[in-house]
Every structure is written in C-alpha cells, then in structure tokens.
C-alpha cells in the first residue's frame, strides 16, 4: 500500500494523472466489451498505480465512494484480480473456472472480496437470472464492511460466454454513494456489449 502511494505520488509529480476521463459515449473496455455511459466517469489508471492491469475501474465521485469494475473476459484458471507472486504466496485468490454456474461465480466474488477486504462481513444475496450483453447471465447483490468499517453495497451483473467471464460490479458506500450513481451505473450495465460476439 505504501509502495502504491509512493508510485502514485511520483506519477502526480511527474504529471501522469492517475485518472483518465471517460466521455459519455460508447467506449471499449479492455478490448473485450463496450458500454455507453450517460455521464462522464473517471477511469483509474491502475497500471500506473499498482501494476495491476486486469480489471478496469471507473469512479464517479472517488474510488472509496463509488466505482464500476469491469471484468472483461476472465479466462479459465485465472483469479478475478491478478496477484503478484508475493501476494499469491501470502493469500492466493480463488480462480474462475469456465464450467462455473452463476451460483459458483457469486461464491467466487464473495470469497475474492472477503479476502481482499479481509472482512468476514461479506454477504451476497438475491442471485437471479438476467440478460447481460444480450446473453443469458445473472445478477446479484452483496454487502461488505471493509477494514475502514464502512458498509458498502454492491451490484453485480455478468455472463459466462465461450468460457470467459464478463462482469460489471458497481459498488458504493451504503449510506449515500451507492444510491447516488445507481441509475448511471445501471445505464452502463444495461448498455454492455461483448466485442466480436455479435452482442
């Protein structure tokens, strides 16, 4: 964490912004899906901050307040977040499997969040079938309390298509910021299309 903060500081001083503005128009995410937001979001330049380049994260009001995370085509055997060797040695994240049902994807998300936030207070609910990018998919909700003791509300939507996981997770503080951008997040989720899949 301290290392990441130093890197972020260095980048700021060097003029490399950790955020990139995402305009309200159809945009491509990780070369795997496209969405059309109706407001401008801020893409977090994660590669600059932490070297993690797998999931793409946007925020409207600040990453601790609300965020959209795009999992754009997670492959079989890969975790939701790529870990460094040291992180993996300390606490390996569970991997996605192509054969997973929505029930198992939800368990995967719950475990991943519980591990990353180091919180036993992580609970999923309301798993249901729903179209995602025109494909048969799923939705569910989750709440978790991180080590900052803040309650967060999570909305997840996704599909497993041709053995890969496509999923958008919207999260925000339960008290205010989840509700604040819920409609805009919903708009992003509803507008999702898979690239090269005719969606």
């Amino acid at each position, binding site marked *: 964490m301290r290392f990441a903060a130093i890197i972020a500081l260095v980048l700021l001083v060097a003029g490399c912004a950790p955020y990139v503005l995402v305009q309200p128009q159809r945009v491509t995410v990780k070369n795997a899906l496209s969405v059309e937001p109706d407001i401008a979001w801020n893409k977090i330049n994660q590669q600059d901050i932490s070297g993690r380049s797998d999931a793409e994260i946007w925020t409207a009001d600040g990453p601790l307040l609300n965020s959209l995370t795009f999992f754009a085509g997670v492959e079989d055997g890969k975790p939701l977040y790529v870990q460094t060797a040291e992180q993996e040695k*300390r606490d390996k994240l569970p991997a996605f499997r192509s054969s997973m*049902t929505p*029930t198992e994807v939800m368990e995967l998300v719950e*475990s991943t969040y519980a591990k990353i936030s*180091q919180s*036993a*207070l992580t609970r999923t609910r309301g798993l*249901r079938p729903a179209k995602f990018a025109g494909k048969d998919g799923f939705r569910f909700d989750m709440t978790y309390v991180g*080590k900052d*003791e803040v309650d967060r509300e999570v909305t997840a939507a996704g599909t497993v298509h041709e053995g890969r996981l496509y999923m958008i997770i919207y999260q925000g503080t339960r008290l205010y910021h989840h509700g604040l951008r819920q409609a805009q997040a919903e708009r992003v989720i509803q507008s999702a299309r898979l690239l090269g899949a005719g969606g």
Partner: protein
Amino acid sequence: MTLGRRHFVGGCSACAALALAGCVTDGVKPAPISPGYKPNAATDEGGIWQVMDNVEAETKRSRFLVRDAELNAYVRDIACRLAGNHCSDVRVYITRTPAFNATMAPNGMMTVWTGLLLRAQNEAQLAAVLGHEIGHYVNRHSLQAYRNARDTADIAAFLSIGLAGAGVGFVGSMVQLAALASIFAFSRDQEREADDVGLKLMSDAGYQPLQASKVWEQLIAEAAASERPRERDVFFATHPAQEERAATLRTKAATLPAGDTYEKRYRAQLKKFRTTLFEDEVRLRQYGQSLKLFEMLGRDGQPDAELAYFTGEVYRQRNADGDDAKAREQYERAIAMADAPPEAYRGLGLIHMRGGDQVRADEAFRQYLKLKPDAEDRAIIRSYVQIRG
C-alpha cells in the same frame, strides 16, 4: 498464543511480528499484577494502557464486534472463572475474525476471535487459550516486552506497529489485529510461563487440563495441511518448539486432576452461531486447512449434518481431481440426517450438473426448492432445472 498469531493470520505484519519476536530477550521481570491495579498515567505502563484504552473504545464501536448478549455472557463467565480475583479487571470482546486467536491487552481488554470458537472442540479448549492469555496479563508480559524492545533497536518497529494497531477501524482487519498482537510479541520464557499459569487456572476451574495440549496438536495438524507455502515454511521452522510445547503441556496435565471438557454445554452455546462460523471459514478458500479442521471436528463420530454439508462445500469449491465424488458423498451423508440443511440438496444438484447428470441434478434442485421455497436464489436454481414437469 503466539503460534496462532504468526501462523493463522494472513498479512505482512506477521513478518514484523516474527522479526520483533526474534529479538525479544527477558530483562527485569515486573511483579505480577494485583487485582484492581491501575498504573500511574505518567509511567511507561500508564502510556501503554492509554493506547490500549483508545483501541478498546474503537473496538466497542466496531461493526466486527459480535454483540449477542448470551454468547458474550457465556465467554465472559469462562474468562471470569479463570481470572478469579482479576475477574472485574477483564473485559471480553468477541470479534468476527475467522482465524485462531485470542489476545489480552495489558489494560485487561481480551479479544476472542470467532475462528477460535469454531476450532475449540469443547469449553475446556477455549478455557485453555483464555487461561494462557490471562497468564500473560497477570504477569505483565507486555510491559516486559515493551521494556525489552525499548532497550534495543526494536523500539522503532515497536512504535510503528503500535501506532498502526491504534489506528482507526482495526478490529475486523486480520492484518491490523496481527499488528496489535505483535506489539506484545512474547519471548519463549513468557510463553512457557503463560502456558503454566493457563494450565493451572483451567485445572483450578475444573477443566480437563489435557485439552490444553490438544489445542496445540490440532493447530499443528491444521498448519501442516495448509496449501499456503509461507504458512508451512514459517511453521515448520519452529515446529519442534511447538511440538515440544504440546508435549510439556501433556506431561504437566497428567499430574493434575482429570477435570471435565464441558463439551455438551459448549456445543449447545455455540449452536446458533455455528452456521456463520462455518460460512466464514469456507469463504477463506483455505481448502486443505479447512478440510483438516472439519475432519478433526468430526472425530467424535457424532452425527453432524452441518459439518458434512460444509465439508461438501469445500470439496465442491476446490474442484480438484476426485473432489466431486467426495463432495457428493458428504452432501449425501448430510441429507441422510434429519437436520440436514436444505442447501445440501443445492450442493448435490451442482455436483450432478457438473458431472452431466441432469436428471439427478433436477431432482436435487427441486428438493432444495421444496424445502426452502423462499430461498433467495430460487430464481437461478429454477433456471438450472432443465427437465420440466
């Protein structure tokens, strides 16, 4: 229980704990604490108490605090029986943290982690751990550790860890709890002394002293089954010391009255929390460790549908070669018992679906929905049922 802190807690601060512990030597020994004792605020001890009072105030507000009155009263009574004259100086906080540990701060704040409640097989085992912590408290081991650190170059590490531990919202974080625990990284002599005191306290309170060594043996077995290479490495580096400790406790227990395990009472008290404790453990995906733990929890041979169900869940989620058959066996074992959780049918359905047996999968899913018609995931489960009618 230093082993617990170092080996059953994730996060990097455990490394700091080890580094710190490695340099602790025993200096001048403070006198044991007397009941009702409060240090002068102007002393080093007063300073430590003040920091811990702040941590305690935050703990009281934490979302991770288990507030159930009955469970708190139960654990507090055990601590009280052990603490004797110190009873009114000890305050117990149960925290929702799925790892083996209990801590006791110098100001009398004791934390009991829910992972310990899952792992203790009877009241005597819980009493053994709490008695050990009270042993540290009564002998003011943390003050001694602080003074030793102050006299060496470790003070910087000590302070930085201390400040981290005193930070906002630490309670639910295993890393920060470990940091807090590591402020009071005890020397081997202190651990031995706490073991002795704990054993005596539990025996005096009528508990079976043999259970103290069993706690250690269970922990050794669990660590050995861990997939985490780090955990195994660190553990086995000090393994003989841990085994020796269990052996010493076993030998000493043989000289004390037989005592009682109070297993029935313990099980009854924990009953309504057990599902949550299991869920918290399974969510960690430490498959090998969890399976070892569950195997040990089932050694008494008593029918336990919940244990079978959660064992099935671990096998299903691990999904390694041969795991599906084992998961199926566990779910079927659970289902054969009268108090099987409906979710055992769901698990069975998922295993059959994975194995391509849609007829049996449908049958299991239907049974799940029949037993739990208002299940939150009913819509998705219905979508798994492919054969209509």
